[in-house]
């Protein structure tokens, strides 16, 4: 074999703490290495050209690049060597940046470590064989999980691009959190007015199949060919008959139901339609509050329903959909702010969340858009907004910023003044984070035009003063004085957390999530929409805090990724899959038993049972290889011999 080795300086990123020239000089002495050099930037155009040039001039049949993480540039260099006529798998990388130069300052130790990692890569490459990818057909349909604004955008873009969409929404209506908002910053236009038409488009698009009040039960398969089991949670209303006329909700005698859509600011009926613009506009019975379902005689809804849609015997049902790609847009929930005892653990009715305040201001909300105190229905004159409740609070394990609270708090302060001319708003903040277009100007307007008092400091305690108002103990750090405000209403800008059930969904999707349950993108900067599972993309807040414009942009970005993937009829399989040496196989079936993908089957070879790998199903985990005692099944490019070569390169001195 003739191997060329390239030790990248990466500017000073590597060369700063690794003697690259020395590593190249030592690498030149490794077996089969015929050429070694240390370019400044290997991944840049001249660097790649130099590799191609060296392959031709030195007749190389294998290349090792020592630079950054292969998770970053392995695909780049595979293409480089392929352009020069080599099989792309005759290439190995040594990670001497993230694993060497960036984590230690000792040049001598780093240089030695880099040299050994290059040796490791060379030894591995010596066992490489050319691999050929196979083409396999794909299902050109996409599953979108979550019908908030990000999911809606992704669904519409995909469907407009000609791709059939399966949209699954957990709640009874799509629209997500945006549908609950009154107005949106920084334009203060009506949320329903801009989201509503999009929701209608979803309902009317011929290529979109909507499953509302449904959840993902199980997912199997792989990019191009996923099989998804969807649980249609029972609504006790046959939606094929329900016309959304609302007669049932008017007559339902159980009027103490918790109203999730209105954040519980007022009770509702046991059978409901979330809000007038709901999509689908269908009724759902809340099992916890329905008299009939709790053993009492009632069934009023069934009696009044003109289409006979009520079905108390209905149970969850399951549907299986086959798709080639998945967009996850599951959004967020508010953290449980009632852990804060100093704010009353949730026992003071006039201390509410910002989302509840949106419903209070919303014309379609239970108060018809009149801002009143939940305790006594009186109009508040002194309103205190407290930011960062459950955000940037390491003491409760939530060090992150929720991103959009500063902006909506400014909006709510403005709207409060619009609703109640003689009111005064106070905002307790730590920093005003308003880096978007027209954002900072917006927070200035809240202060300059609307006279909101912004007070820099956290609030230590909120409690009723026994005379009908709330005492807010805060600090004005700019004044250097503790301050006390008598408030009629306190609105908490409660921090966000990953949507309930996000972790379980991540496990089904085989994608990663961070310590707070937000899904992990492939690369923070360069692959913000992709996940580590091919064919699964992210959109919206499920990936991290972001506002509506960013969620919409990411929804479109995810759709673009799906359309890119589906631009072809077939996909190339990863050729780094398991292969069986039939001679060595004794047909014990241990590999079949362990394979997570069911990608190994038993077949008769000359009358004997042998394992056989289904190439398009194998994902290349290598569990079978570690399981087979005879070493009869080997994962290409991670064979026992590859790994032994690496172990020996490190240990046999």
């Amino acid at each position, binding site marked *: 074999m003739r191997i060329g080795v390239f030790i990248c300086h990466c500017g000073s990123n590597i060369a700063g703490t690794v003697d690259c020239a020395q590593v190249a000089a030592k690498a030149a002495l490794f077996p089969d290495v015929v050429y070694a050099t240390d370019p400044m930037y290997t991944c840049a155009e001249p660097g790649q050209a130099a590799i191609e040039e060296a392959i031709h001039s030195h007749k190389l049949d294998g290349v090792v690049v020592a630079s950054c993480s292969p998770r970053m540039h392995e695909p780049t260099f595979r293409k480089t060597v392929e352009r020069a006529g080599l099989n792309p798998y005759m290439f190995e990388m040594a990670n001497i940046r993230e694993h060497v130069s960036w984590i230690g300052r000792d040049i001598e130790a780093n240089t030695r470590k880099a040299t050994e990692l290059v040796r490791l890569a060379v030894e591995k490459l010596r066992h490489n064989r050319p691999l050929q990818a196979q083409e396999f057909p794909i299902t050109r349909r996409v599953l979108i999980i979550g019908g908030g604004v990000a999911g809606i955008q992704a669904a519409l873009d995909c469907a407009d691009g000609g791709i059939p969409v399966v949209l699954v929404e957990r709640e009874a209506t799509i629209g997500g959190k945006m549908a609950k908002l009154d107005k949106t910053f920084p334009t203060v236009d009506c949320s329903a007015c801009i989201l509503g038409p999009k929701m209608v488009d979803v309902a009317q698009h011929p290529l979109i199949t909507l499953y509302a009040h449904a959840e993902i039960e199980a997912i199997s398969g792989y990019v191009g060919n996923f099989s998804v089991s969807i649980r249609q949670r029972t609504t006790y209303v046959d939606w094929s008959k329900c016309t959304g006329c609302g007669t049932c909700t008017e007559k339902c005698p159980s009027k103490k139901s918790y109203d999730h859509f209105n954040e519980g600011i007022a009770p509702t009926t046991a059978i409901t339609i979330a809000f007038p613009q709901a999509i689908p506009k269908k009724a759902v019975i809340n099992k916890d509050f329905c008299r009939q379902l709790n053993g009492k005689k009632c069934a009023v809804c069934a009696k009044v329903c003109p289409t006979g849609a009520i079905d108390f015997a209905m149970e969850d049902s399951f549907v299986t959909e086959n798709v080639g790609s998945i967009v996850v847009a599951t959004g967020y929930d508010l953290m449980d702010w009632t852990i804060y005892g100093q704010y009353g653990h949730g026992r003071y009715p006039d201390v509410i969340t910002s989302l509840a305040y949106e419903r209070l201001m919303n014309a379609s909300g239970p108060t018809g858009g009149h801002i009143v105190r939940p305790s006594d229905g009186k109009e508040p004159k002194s309103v205190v907004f407290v930011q960062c409740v459950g955000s940037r609070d390491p003491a409760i394990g939530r060090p992150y910023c929720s991103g959009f609270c500063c902006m909506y708090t400014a909006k709510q302060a403005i709207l409060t003044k619009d609703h109640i001319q003689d009111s005064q708003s106070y905002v307790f903040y730590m920093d005003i984070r308003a880096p978007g277009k027209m954002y900072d100007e917006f927070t200035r307007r809240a202060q300059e035009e609307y006279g909101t008092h912004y007070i820099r*400091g956290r609030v230590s305690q909120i409690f009723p003063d026994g005379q009908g108002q709330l005492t807010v103990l805060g600090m*004005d750090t700019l004044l250097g004085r503790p301050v006390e405000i008598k408030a009629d209403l306190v609105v908490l800008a409660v921090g966000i957390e990953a949507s309930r059930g996000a972790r379980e969904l991540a496990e089904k999707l085989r994608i990663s999530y961070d310590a707070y349950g937000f899904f992990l993108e492939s690369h923070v900067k360069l692959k913000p929409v992709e996940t580590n599972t091919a064919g699964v993309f992210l959109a919206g807040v499920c990936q991290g805090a972001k506002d509506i414009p960013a969620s919409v942009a990411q929804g479109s970005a995810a759709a673009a990724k799906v359309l890119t993937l589906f631009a072809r009829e077939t996909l190339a399989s990863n050729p780094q899959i398991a292969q069986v040496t039939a001679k060595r196989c004794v047909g014990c079936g241990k590999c079949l038993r362990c394979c997570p993908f069911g990608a190994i089957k038993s077949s008769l070879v000359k009358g004997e049972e042998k394992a056989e790998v289904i190439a398009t199903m194998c994902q290349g985990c290598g569990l079978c290889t570690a399981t087979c005692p005879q070493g009869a099944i080997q994962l290409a490019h991670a064979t026992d011999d590859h790994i032994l070569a690496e172990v020996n390169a490190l240990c046999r001195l």
Partner: protein
Amino acid sequence: MMNKTLCLNSALPTKDSNAPNFSQKVAALSQQAIHTCYQCGNCSAGCPAAFAYDLQVNQIMRAVQLNQEDLALSAKSLWLCLGCATCSLRCPNAIDVARVMETLRHLARQQNKITVPVVEKFWLSFLNCLRAFGRSYEIGTMVLYMLRSLRLTTDLDLAPQALAKAKLGLLPHTHAGRAAVGRIFTRFAESEAQSKRDKEASSCN
């Protein structure tokens, strides 16, 4: 002092010295991550003594972060802190602020920066009685304190009530342990003196 422009450069770390700076020293003594304070002011917001402070708790934390030793240790607030730990309970960075305050108080005492002497006088009066009697002796503490602070009318308004209700024991309790307590105080004084001598000796070198 409050209105003086502070020169922050003076607190630059020196290259060849391994000696911890003031902030690190306070962090080590209090075992608190001072550097994580992000000045939200929650400590001050809930502080029951804040109205009497010359420097708010969060400002004291800031002074420590910026190595403003003199500013931090001269604050009267150190002596007015009630030790109620509301600040610690609600700190979003889980800093035990009350412990930092106590650490600063110890340091201020070591440097003889006692900016509210009456408070220290009250403590010392209490401890003197304790040293003598092994248990607290309220009348004795009061008398000593009044003599020390020259505030001869302290709580005179309460005296009729207190006496009528026999709130204060007129005589110290008698118990066998008083001698043992006295010895604890004697040894403590010796150890304090010794560590002071050690410090002086090391600073001379």
